[in-house]
């Protein structure tokens, strides 16, 4: 039976671990992630997670190594962290991905310059070849954490998946969440079977670091295989998201992006994570005033929905991109990726790069109304202000 509960984002994450029958979790506490582990403990104590092991690690680096090892020998594994804790995990995260080790990690966003949320912590990890999914609300945390296992464990992908969601405004915010029944998830997500061989001579083996063995001595080979695996994740994300929609009735666009009122729109805004919620409320207001502004929520940052934006490019005269992080000196990450995606299409809508919500700065519905109006102005002028446009 489908159950409902008013719960905070961090509890939705713990409940998803229970439903996915996670066997091993290891973590080190850091605000705003800590209460996930507390909820896991409660679920375990109440007997709802038989056979579950929680390893209290002495730091994030160890936590990552513990879950990596557990996943390698076939235990469905989970870890979670935030901000500087994620940075401390950086080194072993590399091997988790290189070793083709599927697991799910919740990243409860905490910016790198304050305790409050922005996306700088997870953006910082985008070179490691994990799958990075950004989610908007507590229901999406629960759904995406379960989907994360299905995506990551798929033989075409076999990669770790990071599910990023904003600290405080989502991790501690309570809202109604639909909890799917355990037997439904058991049927949909069978127990994890690791590859038969962990050695490099097997066709399903990890990539390793040097990669010499599988590339006939070519040192490029490890990166080539890894790049291919991340690219292959795109179609798997789409399949799994469609499958989840059939199973639960809850749909998240095509999995890579989720469109809202884009049909008939002149321009679109893009957003990632919690701000997409406020942005969709802003879009309703804009349409009410006769301003045709749609919203594209970017769910997957790695792999980036390049094809989706190439298809969108010809339909709208301008795209107002909202980034909740900035790489100093380089600009907003999704702004750069979107521009990069459009170059080969031959259609060049105006692309405006807004940056805001950093270090927890509040981004309101009215802010997004203004961004929509600004994007319409840019479309009219056929030119946007220089990037970044601070919000």
């Amino acid at each position: 039976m489908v159950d409902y509960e008013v719960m905070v984002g961090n509890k939705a994450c713990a409940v998803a671990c229970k439903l996915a029958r996670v066997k091993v979790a290891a973590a080190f506490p850091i605000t705003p992630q800590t209460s996930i582990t507390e909820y896991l403990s409660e679920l375990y104590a109440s007997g709802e997670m038989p056979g579950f092991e929680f390893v209290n690690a002495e730091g994030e680096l160890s936590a990552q190594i513990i879950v990596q090892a557990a996943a390698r020998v076939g235990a469905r594994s989970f870890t979670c962290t935030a901000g500087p804790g994620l940075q401390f995990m950086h080194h072993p995260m590399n091997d988790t991905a290189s070793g083709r080790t599927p697991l799910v990690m919740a990243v409860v966003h905490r910016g790198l310059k304050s305790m409050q949320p922005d996306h700088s912590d997870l953006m910082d990890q985008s070179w490691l070849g994990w799958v990075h999914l950004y989610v908007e609300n507590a229901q999406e945390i629960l759904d995406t954490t379960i989907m994360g296992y299905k995506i990551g464990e798929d033989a075409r992908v076999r990669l770790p998946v990071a599910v990023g969601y904003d600290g405080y405004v989502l991790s501690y915010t309570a809202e109604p969440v639909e909890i799917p029944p355990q037997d439904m998830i058991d049927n949909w997500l069978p127990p994890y079977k690791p590859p038969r061989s962990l050695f490099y001579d097997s066709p399903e083996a990890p990539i390793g670091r040097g990669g010499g063995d599988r590339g006939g001595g070519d040192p490029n080979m490890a990166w080539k295989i890894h790049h291919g695996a991340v690219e292959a994740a795109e179609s798997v994300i789409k399949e799994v998201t469609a499958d989840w929609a059939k199973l639960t009735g809850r749909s998240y666009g095509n999995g890579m992006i989720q469109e809202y009122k884009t049909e008939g729109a002149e321009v679109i805004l893009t957003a990632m994570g919690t701000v997409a919620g406020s942005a969709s409320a802003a879009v309703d207001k804009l349409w009410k005033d006769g301003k045709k502004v749609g919203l594209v929520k970017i769910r997957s940052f790695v792999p980036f929905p390049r094809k989706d934006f190439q298809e969108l490019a010809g339909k709208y005269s301008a795209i107002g991109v909202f980034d909740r992080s900035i790489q100093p000196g380089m600009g907003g990450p999704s702004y750069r990726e979107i521009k990069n995606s459009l170059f080969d299409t031959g259609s060049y809508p105006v692309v405006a790069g807004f940056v805001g919500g950093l270090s927890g700065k509040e981004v309101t519905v009215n802010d997004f109304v203004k961004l929509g109006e600004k994007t319409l102005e840019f479309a009219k002028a056929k030119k946007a202000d220089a990037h970044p446009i601070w919000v």
Partner: protein
Amino acid sequence: MIEIRLHGRGGQGAVTASRIIAAAAFEDGRYSQAIPMYGTERRGAPLTAYVRIDNVRVRERELVHTPDYSICFDEFISMNQIIANSLKPGGVVLANTKFKAEELPLAGDIKIATVDATGIALKHLGRPITNTAILGAFAKICPEISMKGVEKAIYKYFPGRIGDMNIAAARASYEQVSELVPAINKEAPKEVVEIVSGGYGALKDVSGWRVFEPVVDEEKCIGCKNCWIYCPEAALEWTANNKPAMISRSCKGCGVCANECPVKAIEMKRVEVKKK
């Protein structure tokens, strides 16, 4: 959509109360959302939390800036205009205080109801945790949630006997809450009193956080310094006659000193809230 702002202190359960309101609304068949405003809070620090109730899933993820309702869990904060500020015109303030609604020094185009939630909490729970003790009153004055929903939600957070005690407190406040009375002063005072002191006690004045304060019986005191060692705020000074004395601006009234005293020479006395 209706929006609610909650004012309280760390330890009074304002954040839990926000979740109980959200759960109660959901029990009544509505959608809801409860957002706490967190910093590096600690017991006694003023904090706010917010609730939205709507007929559709709440997508807005910003703090509530113009609430319809403001609920204050703390007797001291109840005397402060901040609980009445930026409400929608005709908005409602529910304050925990012994004073009558018409006696509260609040201003604006607002209506005020009061209830002695601290008294109710001390009677039913034995502790000044006012969250459930004010929720019954809120169910009475707010047509958006029902007492039945509140009771169901309280049981979700506090099953068993603790739930019964909290529901008894909520029912008492449902019965005892005053009528809604328009504020006497229509114009809000220009000056804003800063009551949200973050940071740490040694640097900030936290005297307004106390519900109880330590009173030392110098006859009984043996001068062992246990209280001085265990005080988490360094809020006790050592007097010339080898006895402890409260540093008023640093003491948040936690009662650790009274608890640690081996000869029970420290009594935690209820602080009386006076009108300005």
